[in-house]
């Protein structure tokens, strides 16, 4: 590939991914006011506590599940990848709602958290612990799936080699866990960022975090300057996992060497791993589903929910399909056509990270600034393509990272042979890379479809006339006290999300370890 197309490619990708961010900051610069104030220190630290708590909980739960999937030999471990999908199909908004409306919740003493609320403050419904519990319970599958993929792809042969010389505990602490750390900590980092920028759970719990504070600034009209200050503080708060992961990667060489193989099966550690996995599944799937099922009451609620939410569910599905296609398309081009190392790849990573970390409604605001103009751009602003652009930009990073890792795992000899026979970059992409990566492409598309299906961020700020997504409908309905219909609608949305996710896991299991 010549230098000019590379520059064009990088520019195009950066433009699509960064356009919403650029739009937002340009508008912010134009609307700065003297009395714009940054978020308070209390808000900053509360947000870090929330995100850190959620990431910590997700790491502990996800680690147990990853070990159970990859290092246990039982029926439970074979079913677990599917159970691990359920929390992903229940977006944090729904999880929060289910937890808050848990029958008997008003009297529930949850590890003492609820009881202490009566004394005025740190209960599940009010300050970070409740939010961290809900977000951690909802997002642990990210850690679990990344961890399981790393285990299945990597350290099995090392464990087998060490087995004659060391006990299970020693192998676990010296080989399995170090091999698992980069992937699971990366997963915890993703959970941290998602929790930091999450708006719906703090909003439901009436918590004041950076995300809710920035939302207030944006939605009071011309306070984009203040929202921009808040977003910079949020990016600052997003830095710790990035720095931590960078240090970890430097100090610890990757242990995922050798061919994928069955690793050591846990025996002594089995009770811990099974208990952790059962707790994870109960928190992330059992409690919310039981809560929702009890609230829904019976079949009539599902009929009403379908009548109420049929249109929005369909809207969400097609929006998610287009957004996932956009993110995966861009991610694929960037992963395959950009050089494997160098400035262009790092710039693309940075651009993707900024779009991923900033709350969706800020991207929506930026896109509004770009597209809300007379002329042809207006069609994008007025319809739902504006939401697809926002969600696609936000989810570019997971697509780029996943497909980049998959591409890095391909043998280079095929591409080198194609170059030698004169094949151009697009021909190589479609004839060599894509066929070899097709399962990864399909799996990440399906996962992003599910995440986009549950995404509420951009649509909360901008609902195109006549186009309501299921998440916004749910968010509104939750306020009207129609608990039966809302619960049934949540369960319907979950069922729709689970179909592509289960397909993704089937693809992944047929090709163990490539989704890393």
């Amino acid at each position, binding site marked *: 590939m010549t230098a000019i197309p590379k520059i064009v490619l990088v520019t195009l990708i950066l433009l699509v991914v960064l356009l919403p961010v650029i739009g937002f900051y340009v508008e912010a610069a134009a609307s700065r006011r003297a*009395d714009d*104030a940054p978020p*308070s220190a209390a808000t900053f630290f509360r947000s870090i506590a929330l995100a850190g708590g959620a990431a910590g909980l997700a790491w502990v739960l996800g680690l147990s599940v990853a070990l159970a999937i990859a290092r246990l030999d039982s029926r439970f471990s074979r079913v677990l990848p599917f159970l691990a999908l359920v929390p992903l199909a229940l977006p944090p908004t729904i999880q929060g709602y289910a937890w808050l409306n848990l029958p008997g919740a*008003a009297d529930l003493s949850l590890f003492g958290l609820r009881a202490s609320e009566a004394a*005025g403050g740190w209960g599940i*419904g*009010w300050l970070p612990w409740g939010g961290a519990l809900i977000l951690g319970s909802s997002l642990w599958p990210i850690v679990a799936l990344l961890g399981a993929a790393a285990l299945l792809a990597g350290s099995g042969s090392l464990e087998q080699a060490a087995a004659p010389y060391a006990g299970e505990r020693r192998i676990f602490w010296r080989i399995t866990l170090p091999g698992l750390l980069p992937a699971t900590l990366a997963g915890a980092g993703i959970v941290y960022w998602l929790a930091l920028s999450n708006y719906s759970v703090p*909003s*439901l719990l*009436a918590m*004041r975090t950076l995300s809710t504070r920035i*939302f*207030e600034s944006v*939605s*009071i*009209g011309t306070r984009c300057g203040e929202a921009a200050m808040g977003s910079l503080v949020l990016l600052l708060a997003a830095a710790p996992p990035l720095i931590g992961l960078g240090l970890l990667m430097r100090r610890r060489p990757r242990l995922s060497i050798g061919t994928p193989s069955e690793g050591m099966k846990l025996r002594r550690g089995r009770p811990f791993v099974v208990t952790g996995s059962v707790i994870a599944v109960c928190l992330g799937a059992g409690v919310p589903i039981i809560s929702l099922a009890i609230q829904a009451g019976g079949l009539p609620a599902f009929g009403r929910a379908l009548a109420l939410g049929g249109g929005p569910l369909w809207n969400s599905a*097609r929006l998610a*399909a*287009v957004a996932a*296609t956009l993110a995966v398309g861009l991610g694929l081009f960037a992963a395959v056509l950009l050089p494997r190392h160098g400035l262009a790849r790092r710039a693309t990573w940075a651009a993707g990270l900024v779009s991923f970390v900033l709350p969706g409604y800020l991207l929506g605001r930026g896109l*509004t600034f770009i597209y*809300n*103009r*007379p002329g042809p751009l*207006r069609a994008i602003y*007025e*319809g*739902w*393509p504006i939401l*697809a652009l926002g969600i696609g930009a936000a989810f570019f990073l997971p697509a780029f990272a996943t497909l980049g890792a998959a591409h890095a795992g391909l043998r280079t000899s095929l591409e080198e042979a194609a170059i030698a026979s004169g094949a151009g970059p697009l021909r190589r992409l*479609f*004839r060599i890379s*894509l*066929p070899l990566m*097709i399962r990864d492409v399909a799996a990440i598309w399906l996962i992003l479809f599910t995440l986009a299906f549950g995404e509420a961020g951009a649509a*909360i*700020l*901008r*609902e*195109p*006339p*006549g*186009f*309501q997504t299921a998440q*916004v*409908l749910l*968010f*509104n*309905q939750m*306020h*009207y*006290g*129609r*608990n039966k219909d809302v619960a049934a609608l949540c369960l319907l949305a979950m069922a729709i999300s689970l179909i592509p996710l289960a397909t993704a896991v089937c693809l992944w299991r047929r090709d163990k370890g490539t989704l890393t």
Partner: protein
Amino acid sequence: MRHSHNATLVIVLAGIVLAVLIWVIRPGSEGSRQVVVYTSVDQEHARRLLDKFEKETGIRVRASFDIEAQKTTGLYNSIRDERSAPIADVFWSSEASRMEQLRREGLLAPYASPSGASIPEAYRAPDGAWYGFGARARVLVYDPRRFQESDPPRSIFDLTDPALKGRVGIANPLFGTTSSHVAALFAARGDRAKEFLLDLKKNDVRILDGNSRVRDLVGRGELWVGLTDTDDVWVGKDNGLLLEMVFPDGEAGGLGTLVMPNTIGLIRGARHPDEGKAFIDFILSKETEADLAYGPSRQIPVRGDVDTPPTIVPLEGIRTMTVSIPQIVDVLPESLQFVRDHFLQ
């Protein structure tokens, strides 16, 4: 190998074609008669009337709703953002102050609706840019189980009572009717309103993301008392919550209760002005106001001759605040600033 490549290409092309098709088949084609309505009225209440209008007139309604957490303000911002090429034809607001702000900014087109002729002057803009109808009152909602041995609060100033510390909830006063209520206090009481807010803060008031959330937490016994709208209380009662309400400060010489009507106005430069006017006429009809009174939100008609159910307290039976909507809008920027800088920080 070649077979596999061809299959891949077919899959990719099929995916692209599907994505394009999905993109193209989207709502909002301009073929039929339509009206774009931005409404901050609760979706479940508005939807019924929008469907009825569609059925009666054959005009398709494309609606945008505001989420509870940014009630009215979100759509107000959108209309301001879109001033160079409006998308909305009609703004149907759940309160009046943002509508009056839009009028002052020249974003509404005056329209002498025949249906609105009978609406009292206090509930419409002098130039006919907007009309008020179907009002709600700001009330104190309380959990009767908590006040079996003592009287429930009768004044909003009772919410600062230390006995209620940590037990009072209000919606975020930057949005919706709560923001108008705070501005009305500023207009009526000046600095006393600021003291009240600071006292509320000292009393650990819970700031929630909507009036209905206030109602729910009071109904579930997690809060003892809150400030909300009458329609939220009625819906809560219908859903089985144990709630009672008080029209606050109704004693002689008292501050009075804030009554906030729905408002509706035509957007200046609307793309479907005729359909917009038809919609306004429909909403302002006495039948619609009676429908709102008999509906789940039990909204209070501003016209005395509209039929109402016996459970509704008519406007004449409520001692209302003497602050006008223009007065509220005059102080709204100051009150919002104070809330942001001193109450929410």
